[in-house]
């Protein structure tokens, strides 16, 4: 259902519980200090955790929406990541205060007679509350849950116990890749397919669903490459070469925002890294490319960038503005 964007909350919550769910996965349970009810949310929603001033991460809510006193997220340690999950795993401790923004939902569950859920690894988190909603609605559903190894798959036991016969757990080291041609074999009317997981899984599911009715498949992305615009939000500096002005880009704002706010006129359109309108020449520094347009080679040349979504790997970028 499409409604006006609702109010977004900014909350300081207390980390009430931090527990290990699986290899490399911890679940955080957040409450308000005074025990007050937290904002309402629906399955598929995510929140921002503002871990430090320049470290903001998005995580899907994986708890029970009816349980209004807590918000729960599960975080996978990403060794190749740039500090967000490491901060959650290594630094955050029970009793800490965590600043939270949201919730927002770009992945809502539509009404359907039947559902096929496909989750890969930590992609199980937004799916989890969807299962409860589908079950409560009396829908016919099944979940196929893939992961690297059995011990890396969070919520595995709980799912198998709660929904016997409806949940198939497929660890890759035991049975290989998910058999999508079979799972998604027969396109059905009134069936909604929900998928969350790593990019190769999303791409494979998308490919498999080309024969399905339009609109049957729901992924947590549309236009930008999955994950292209995700990644750590850190602060850095930009220098506008034409005026010599130096501006600070804080973690929660884009280069485009900061440049416009400084009074410099700059073109933009889609603001999601897909149209190319805000392309800007880079004179010095190394951009952190998050657009869906430049080829790998063009990105590697580091002489141009889309300032609506891309950020900086270096402490300073000099732009031809």
């Amino acid at each position: 259902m499409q409604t006006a964007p609702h109010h977004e909350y900014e909350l300081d919550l207390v980390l009430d519980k931090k527990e290990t769910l699986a290899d490399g996965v911890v679940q955080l349970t957040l409450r308000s200090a005074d025990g007050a009810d937290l904002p309402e949310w629906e399955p598929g929603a995510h929140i921002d955790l503002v871990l430090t001033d320049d470290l903001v991460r998005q995580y899907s809510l994986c708890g029970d929406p009816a349980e209004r006193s807590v918000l729960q997220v599960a975080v996978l340690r990403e060794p190749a990541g740039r500090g967000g999950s490491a901060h959650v795993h290594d630094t955050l401790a029970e009793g800490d205060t965590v600043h939270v923004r949201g919730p927002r939902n770009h992945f809502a569950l539509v009404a359907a007679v039947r559902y096929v859920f496909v989750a890969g690894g930590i992609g199980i988190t937004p799916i989890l509350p969807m299962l409860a909603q589908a079950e409560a609605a009396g829908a016919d559903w099944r979940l196929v849950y893939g992961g690297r190894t059995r011990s890396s798959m969070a919520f595995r036991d709980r799912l198998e116990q709660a929904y016997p016969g409806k949940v198939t757990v497929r660890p890759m080291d035991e049975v290989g890749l998910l058999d999508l041609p079979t799972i998604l074999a027969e396109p059905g009317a009134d069936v909604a397919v929900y998928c969350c997981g790593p990019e190769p899984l999303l791409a494979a599911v998308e490919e498999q669903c080309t024969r399905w009715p339009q609109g049957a498949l729901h992924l947590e992305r549309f236009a930008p490459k999955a994950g292209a615009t995700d990644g750590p939000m850190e602060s850095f500096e930009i220098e506008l070469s034409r005026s010599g002005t130096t501006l600070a880009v804080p973690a929660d704002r884009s280069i485009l925002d900061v440049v416009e706010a400084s009074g410099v006129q700059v073109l933009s359109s889609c603001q999601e890294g897909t149209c190319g309108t805000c392309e800007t020449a880079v004179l010095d520094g190394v951009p952190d490319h998050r657009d869906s347009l430049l080829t790998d080679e063009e990105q590697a040349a580091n002489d141009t960038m889309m300032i609506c979504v891309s950020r900086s790997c270096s402490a300073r970028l000099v732009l031809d503005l």
Partner: protein
Amino acid sequence: MITTIPVLDDDPFGDEILTDPYPFHQRLRDSGPVVHLRRYGIWAMGRYAEVHAALTDPATFCSSRGAGLSDFHREKPWRPPSLLLEADPPTHTATRKAMSAVIAPRTVRRFREGFTASAESIADELVARGEFDAVTDLAERYPLQVFPDIVGLPADGRENLLPYGGLAFNAFGPRNALLEEALAAAAPVQEWIWKSCQRDALSPDGLGASIWAAADAGDITHEQAPMLVRSLLSAGVDTTVHGIANTVAALAAHPEQWAALHADPTLAKFAFDEALRYAGPVQTFFRTTTREVEVAGTVIGEGEKVLLFLAAANRDPRKWGPDADRLDITRRASGHVAFGMGIHQCVGQPIARLEIELVLTALARRIARLEPLGDPVPKLNNTLKGWQSVPLRAHAGG
């Protein structure tokens, strides 16, 4: 709660509104976020917030049932549907990705030199003549020089592109006199268009050949390749012709804006962006609902046609402020929906922007003042707003 749904009896495809759409756009916006247009039994949105939200929710507001009034579930389209404009994910995803790769920023950068040469030569000629028509001497000439070259079309028959584009955009509307005339005018050219989409008709170094190469690489099928070349031809010419004419006409009608551009020709790209907001060529597109959906309190059923007024959204004071109806090239026009928004946003946008920035820069450098020599004559089309004739005199200046 009972809400009253506003109903309007106007014909948005009638001559009166197509000639001067803006008073109707205002009534539409002021009537409510979602309005029922009784004449066609369709829904309409004219406010920025709802138009933007619908454009960026293709799962609910789909394109595969046609981006025009005709519902492809119920009526046979006048041509095989576009693989881009009239498709939904996941099928749309592959063709869009292939087309984005063909029109990559690196490719578009290579066009600058050729576009500049054409733009400078036309600007020189217009200044030397003094009096010229911004449509026939400029807007219809420059894109027809530069665009078919980059696609790699044969030299003969390029004049066929205009009636074909005229039909493609009229066909989004009802079967009125405009569409009948366009069908008649384009009947003889459809064969040329389809032949020009085939591999053997296209030069080996153009965008058309790149689309065929994408088929060889397996990114798209060989059946899809000519269809995607056809998309370039349908969407790449009339839009820029109208874009140039509308921009120059708007700037000529606002001498202080032209003076600002002449004083600083680097403002050309912003002037074009603002002109798109102020008088965009593509006025409307349809979507079809895939499910029952509530928009700002109004429930729209499944399978309903929704007419999105891009041009009305682009002048919505709720988004642009009380002076939304004013042309101001120093305004922050970013975010306008003249190119659409979301997954169907114009894939050729970088080409259009480059083309028009360069010709506008060439004109602004040479011309201190553009004097209107009479009222512009409107050109009516069910989707495009434009002019048949915009007579001007160029006053050169240093």
